[in-house]
């Protein structure tokens, strides 16, 4: 660094931005790479089954396979619409749905 750098405005160094962006994008891509090939199909079929009972949007199902030491965890997240969720829960319990 030279004497004159002291008076310069400090932006985050471009290289630091490059590193940060790479770390984020690669974390994402490595996750996708390690997931088994059947996952997208499984997601599609699960979605179809759930849709038979509850009307949900296609993008409201997230499916993830995580490997930890000794076991794998298949995580399925389904986001149900508020009113419909209650109706579905009530229907499952065999009671009439509460008015919303």
């Amino acid at each position, binding site marked *: 660094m*030279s004497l004159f750098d002291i008076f310069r405005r400090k932006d985050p160094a471009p*290289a630091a931005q490059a590193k940060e962006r*790479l770390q984020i*994008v690669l974390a994402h*891509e*490595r996750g996708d790479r390690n997931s088994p090939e059947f996952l997208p199909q499984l997601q599609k079929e699960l979605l179809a089954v759930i849709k038979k009972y509850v009307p949900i949007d296609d993008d409201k199902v997230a499916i993830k396979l995580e490997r930890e030491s000794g076991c794998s965890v298949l995580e399925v997240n389904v986001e149900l619409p508020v009113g419909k969720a209650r109706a579905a829960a009530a229907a499952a319990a065999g009671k009439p749905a509460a008015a919303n």
Partner: protein
Amino acid sequence: MAKIVTMTSGKGGVGKTTSSAAFGTGLALRGFKTCIIDFDVGLRNLDLIMGCERRVVFDFVNVINGEAKLSQALIKDKRVENLYILPTSQTRDKDALSKEGVEKILDELKKEFDYIVCDSPAGIEKGAQMALYFADEAIIVTNPEVSSVRDSDRILGVIQAKSRRAEQGLEPVKEHLLLTRYDLERVEKGEMLKVDDVLEILAIPLLGIIPESPAVLKASNVGMPVVLDDKSAAGQAYADAVARFLGEKVEHRFMKPEKKGFFDRLLRRSA
């Protein structure tokens, strides 16, 4: 036992062929019988970098198809003892290389050579996969730049999933990082990824840092592997990388700038 070393990168233009030529020549200079194979079917270039383009008669694909013997296609280097080049074909048929054909040739080469250096084409498709399939070790050529680092990470994934060693559950392919076109001045200014940054992201051992150097272009102009230019920083860096590959402990150079005098620093300002 012969070793197959694949020079690969995912991204194009980062210095795979330059590095294959320099690294293979470096191995031969150390007394190992070495063959460098150009796997970039359709885009033959190793012959130009090695300066033997006018001596190509038969190529890799001719040998696979049984149109020539391996000994007819191998070109013996005129400068370095123990060094041979197997040029690729200019055919546009991208299925010219078959796994069986490549395996047969590699098996034949293994009987005669200590090291077989495979110069991979860019990409992660069939050509690149063919070059890395039989690898015992892989050298990932990376520039300190976002797209090159990302592509290196992709190709590491391919090596770990699709190489023969991975498929057959053998000991994994040994990976090395070769960081090329490293510009210390720009790193110091925070404009370029540091070697430590790239190492942290890719998490593979560092084989060498090749500094950005005018010697590389000059050497390619005249068809000379840059390692033969032992006065140049790049040439020395390749020789160091070869020594490390052979298990010698050589300290990394070009990681810190040369010491500058007081006046240099004062006058540098915004240079």
